[in-house]
C-alpha cells in the first residue's frame, strides 16, 4: 500500500511526518511505501492513505476513509494510535 504525508509545500512538515510514519510502521510491523508531497499533488488516486493536518484536510478533497488527520505533526503517539486504528479497520 501507499501512504502519502502531505503539507502545504511538500518539503518540510510532510517530510517530518514521513519519518514518523516509517518509525511507527516499523514498530507495529506493517509495510508500506511512504512518501511526502504538497497539497496539489495529493489527488485521491495518488495513494491509499493520506496523512495531513487539520488545517489542510478540509480543502484536500481526500475522502474521509483514506485520510488520517493529525493535530500535531510531531506527536508520534497520536500518529501511532491513528495508524493502528486505520489498520484495524482495513
Amino acid at each position: 500500500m501507499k501512504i502519502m504525508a502531505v503539507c502545504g509545500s511538500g518539503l518540510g512538515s510532510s517530510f517530518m511526518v514521513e519519518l514518523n510514519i516509517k518509525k511507527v510502521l516499523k514498530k507495529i510491523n506493517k509495510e508500506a511505501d511512504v512518501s511526502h508531497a504538497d497539497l496539489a499533488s495529493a489527488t485521491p488516486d495518488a495513494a491509499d492513505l493520506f496523512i495531513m493536518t487539520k488545517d489542510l484536510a478540509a480543502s484536500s478533497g481526500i475522502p474521509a476513509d483514506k485520510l488520517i488527520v493529525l493535530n500535531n505533526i510531531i506527536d508520534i503517539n497520536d500518529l501511532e494510535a491513528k495508524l493502528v486504528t486505520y489498520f484495524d479497520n482495513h
Partner: protein
Amino acid sequence: MLSTWLTHETIRIVDSVDNWKQAVRLSAIPLLESEIISPSYIQAIYQMHEKIGPYYVLAPGIAMPHARPEEGVNKLGLSMLLVRNGVSFCSQDNDPVYLITMLAAPDNNSHLEMLTELAELFSKPTSMQAIFKADNVEQILSIVNQY
C-alpha cells in the same frame, strides 16, 4: 549536525513581537543577510499562510516557516528565533508559538538530513522546554549541539 546550520549568527532571541508576520520576518533576517534567501521567500510564506492557514506550525509552541525552493532560496539554511513571551500564529491547537525555525531548502533533497535531526530535536519535550526558557543563545546552542 544541526550546529552546522544553527550558530551564534543564525539564532536570535527577542522578548516579544507584534504579530506572526513580524516573527517570520525577524526569523528570516540571518538568512537574508547571508543571502541564503531573497525577500520574495518571506512574501511566499505570508501568501501561503493566508491561503491555507498556518501550515508550518508543527506542534505546541513550534513553527517552521518555509516555502518552495523556487520561491527565493539560494542555498541550504536554517535560522531560529525564540520569542520569550510567545506569539499567536492563529493555530487553534498549537498557539502560543515560542520557537520559529525558518527552513530554506534549495531543492527537494539536500535538506533531508538536516530535517531528520531537527525532527529528533522537536520531538524531545525536555529539550524543547529548555529552549523555550533559554536566556541566551549559548543555552540554545548547548541543546542544539546534541543533535
